[in-house]
């Protein structure tokens, strides 16, 4: 099931969205997350949705692929939708079955909230789908750089992020390996009472932690012998370059903001 998830995955391609500067994309997504909360009626949500669809189209990713890959997230959205329907108690009653009553406001809220959630998930997924993890960290470091003046460890944070991202597949492989080794020794993680299943996790977690610590130590030594001494004065192999299209992408958000402000009721 992990293999089908696209959350956090990068799909190599050569679209406009792929070519954008990672800084622009990061800002774009952060701003989008902010301004989507301006929408409060059908028209505004429609505009935001249209904007999202346009972005998806420009990234070369198909909506079908997105929906399929984000199935687990869809389930969460569906649950929020149902909960929302039952919890809001305003407006006219649409359905009254005695034990449950559904209000008009409930349905409205449910649709709006799940739309907002969906658009957010789509946009953030687009970021990771069109940007390599290494570009994301580069972009983030560059964006956080001004904060260095107030002693914010921007370089260290970016390094931590890239190391974490680098070792996710390694950890996944190792989990699989240790799990199989313990299963071969009769451990049973998939059946039996909850208490036993929790107990069966210990023989999996301890080797994983031990190995992770060992690997961290090895990595630290390997970095030191290659002369790593922090971000001070360090030059970069991959230089980020801001193009006109990056400015244009951010300007389109200004347009969307104005539109949302005008449309909201």
């Amino acid at each position, binding site marked *: 099931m992990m*293999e*089908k998830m696209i959350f956090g995955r990068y799909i190599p391609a050569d679209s406009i969205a792929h070519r954008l500067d990672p800084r622009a994309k990061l800002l774009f997504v952060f701003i989008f997350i902010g301004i989507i909360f301006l929408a409060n009626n059908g028209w505004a949500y429609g505009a935001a949705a249209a904007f999202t669809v346009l972005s998806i189209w420009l990234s070369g990713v198909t909506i079908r692929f997105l929906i399929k890959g984000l199935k687990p997230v869809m389930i969460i959205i569906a649950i929020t939708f149902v909960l929302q329907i039952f919890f809001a108690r305003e407006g006219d009653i649409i359905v009254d079955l005695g034990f449950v009553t559904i209000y008009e406001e409930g349905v409205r809220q449910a649709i709006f909230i799940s739309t907002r959630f969906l658009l957010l998930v789509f946009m953030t997924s687009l970021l990771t789908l069109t940007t390599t993890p290494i570009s994301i960290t580069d972009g983030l470091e560059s964006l956080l750089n001004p904060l260095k003046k107030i002693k914010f460890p921007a370089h260290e944070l970016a390094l931590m992020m890239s190391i974490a991202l680098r070792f996710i597949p390694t950890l996944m492989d*190792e989990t699989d*390996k*240790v799990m*199989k*080794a*313990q*299963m*071969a*020794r*009769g*451990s*049973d993680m998939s059946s039996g009472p909850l208490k036993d299943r929790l107990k069966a996790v*210990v*023989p999996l977690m*301890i*080797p994983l932690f*031990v*190995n992770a610590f060992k690997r961290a130590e090895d990595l630290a030594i390997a970095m030191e012998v290659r002369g790593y001494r922090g971000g001070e004065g360090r030059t970069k192999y991959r230089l980020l370059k801001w193009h006109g299209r990056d400015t244009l992408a951010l300007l389109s958000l200004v347009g969307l903001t104005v539109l949302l402000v005008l449309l909201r009721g």
Partner: protein
Amino acid sequence: MDISLQKVEYRYAAGSPFEKLAIEDVSFSVPSGQYVAIIGHTGSGKSTVLQHLNALLKPTAGSVVIGDRTVRAGRKEKELKSIRQKVGIVFQFPEQQLFEETVLKDICYGPMNFGVSEEEAKNRAEYWIEEVGLSREILNQSPFDLSGGQMRRVAIAGVLAMQPDLIVLDEPTAGLDPRGRKEMMDMFYRLHKERNLSMILVTHSMEDASVYADKIVIMHKGKKVHEGTPREIFADAEKLKQWDLSVPEVVHFQRLLEHKTGILFPVVCLTMEELVAQWKQLSGGHPL
């Protein structure tokens, strides 16, 4: 206990866009008490085959017969524990599976999972720790305080203490020094001989395969391409080359010797001792 694979196929992530065929149409059998080596280049599907031997993976087509149990494609299997008790797998770098506070507890983990009493498990731990060449004093230490070689032996004792009928070894000597390698391989061979244990050795080492195995199975690109006794297999170096494999050093030396002296040996020699004995006969006592 006999074990056999019948036309086994396995696809990773079957039914998804990431589907990948790992092995296809693999059939071979390991009769009770036999020592079988599986050799093949990296990525040939050896590890995938190995995981079918105790139902860690279930075939996507074909079936695996393990003693009186059959694991068939597309059928839900219940009670896999009885299979896993009979087939002990020593994975590559088994020291990475240690987790308990003491060596004793770690060795007891497997047997107790299979319903052995604590008392009996302890007895087994005391017995097997010596069988793998460590002293009993070590039982009360933390496995994480031991050296790499000792940790591996502890992990192996943990699998042996399950008292399986068949032992599967996946590159058991990877990362050991030459002496450690030989000790370990000799230990497994002794267990195989003394207890009539079936063994399956997955290895890169042509030497180990030729010296210890009764039968060799060659995997190449997810398929079983050849099967035979070590002498049959290593007689034809050219054939092996097409599967990215080579002959053991001794055989290579024998071929060079034959080429240089023009004297042809009647058989393929698998050990140095054998080669020397043959040479003495052929050359009438003339030293090499």
